């Protein structure tokens, strides 16, 4: 069993950590004690035995590479500091909440009945009545069936332009809205009249397959619509 306190003192002596006065005292003890000398020799041998091999030298270009990396890191950190991640948590929380609210609002509006949307659209209703800006799809999806029938005059549901008691009735998306010319439209010029005349003609109906263009070509060719495509094709 070794004396721990004595070992510690010997180690401090070996490592040069013992105060000068204690060094003198220890040397005096060592001179008188062969056992202490032997123990010191063992510790010295163990300590000296811990010899490191030569460290691996730094590879060529290590310092420039490190400097380059550091510069990149600095730029990255500086950029990040200006970016979103540098924003205070409460700002990020507010933004996230606004995003969620926006999405929820969008989904909610998307699920609302069309009629309710139209009725709730004062902005749309406030558009001057000269042009027809009813349903968004009518404005963006090109000529509607109504347009093809009425010879270029758009006849869209009038809820958007002139709200009336009847128009405030909510309509579902599946509601079929009959084409009813408004009173203001009846006072329109002759093209409206001709359109109504066309509508009255049995050969031209909304549900029929004959379009104005077909009528026109049939008239040119002097053939009836019953000739089928074969005759027409032969004419071409």
């Amino acid at each position, binding site marked *: 069993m070794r004396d721990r*306190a004595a070992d510690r003192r010997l180690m401090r002596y070996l490592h040069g*950590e013992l105060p000068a006065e204690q060094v003198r005292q220890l040397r005096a003890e060592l001179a008188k004690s062969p056992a202490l000398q032997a123990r010191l020799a063992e*510790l010295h041998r*163990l300590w000296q035995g811990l010899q490191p091999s030569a460290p*691996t030298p730094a590879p060529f270009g290590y310092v420039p590479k*490190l*400097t380059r990396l550091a510069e990149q890191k600095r730029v990255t950190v500086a950029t990040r500091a200006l970016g979103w991640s540098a924003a205070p948590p409460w700002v990020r929380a507010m933004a996230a909440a606004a995003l969620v609210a926006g999405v929820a609002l969008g989904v909610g509006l998307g699920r609302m009945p069309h009629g309710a949307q139209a009725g709730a659209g004062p902005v749309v209703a406030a558009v001057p009545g000269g042009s027809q800006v009813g349903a968004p799809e009518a404005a963006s999806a090109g000529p509607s069936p109504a347009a093809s029938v009425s010879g270029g005059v758009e006849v869209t549901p009038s809820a958007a332009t002139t709200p009336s008691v009847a128009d405030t009735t909510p309509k579902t998306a599946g509601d079929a809205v009959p084409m009813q010319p408004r009173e203001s439209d009846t006072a329109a010029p002759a093209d409206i009249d001709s359109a109504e005349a066309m509508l009255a003609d049995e050969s031209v109906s909304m549900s029929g397959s004959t379009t104005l263009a077909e009528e026109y070509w049939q008239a040119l060719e002097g053939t009836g619509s019953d000739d089928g495509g074969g005759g027409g094709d032969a004419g071409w």
Partner: protein
Amino acid sequence: MTADLAPGLAPEPATDPDWELVARVATGDREAFGELVEHHHRRLLRVCERLLGDAEDARDAVQEVFLKVMLKAGSFRPKALVSTWLYRVAVNHCLNVLRRRRLRRWVSLSPVEDDETAAPPPDLAEERADPHRELEARHRWGRVQRAIADLPPSQRAVLVLARFEELSYKEIAETLGITLGAVESRLFRAMRALERAQEAPE
């Protein structure tokens, strides 16, 4: 025997000229950073290699250390030598690495797979006269190497700094941020562990 931080460990005036380099690094001076790396990278590579047991890991560690230094240079205040501060950053980084993985190799001493092929003990003058004793000494040395690899990181750090970097107890205490008593205690326990390994029967 536990000693508190000696009076000498109190912050010293910044007399190290490298602090000026650090201050320039804090302002984004690329040249200053290059100079700082040039001055200190060899020593840090050496200590990291001895702590981590692998030259490539040591290069990665030193790279991380200098990047930390660059990013945090502005927040450090001169207290002692820059080299001590860098040692501290490096050793702490290595200790974190070591805590994540239990190291089984010891770099500064050759890898130990077989006692026959291991690095020879440093002093075999007496044993060389007798082949049997020489073989026994080699086995004993191999056990010491394995014991070093098995030391807890905190003890290994003290051993590396004391034996291989030849730092004083005071410098080790500054570097690791521990007391002189803790330095002595860890070193003593490390040496006892190595001695037990050396004496252990096959």
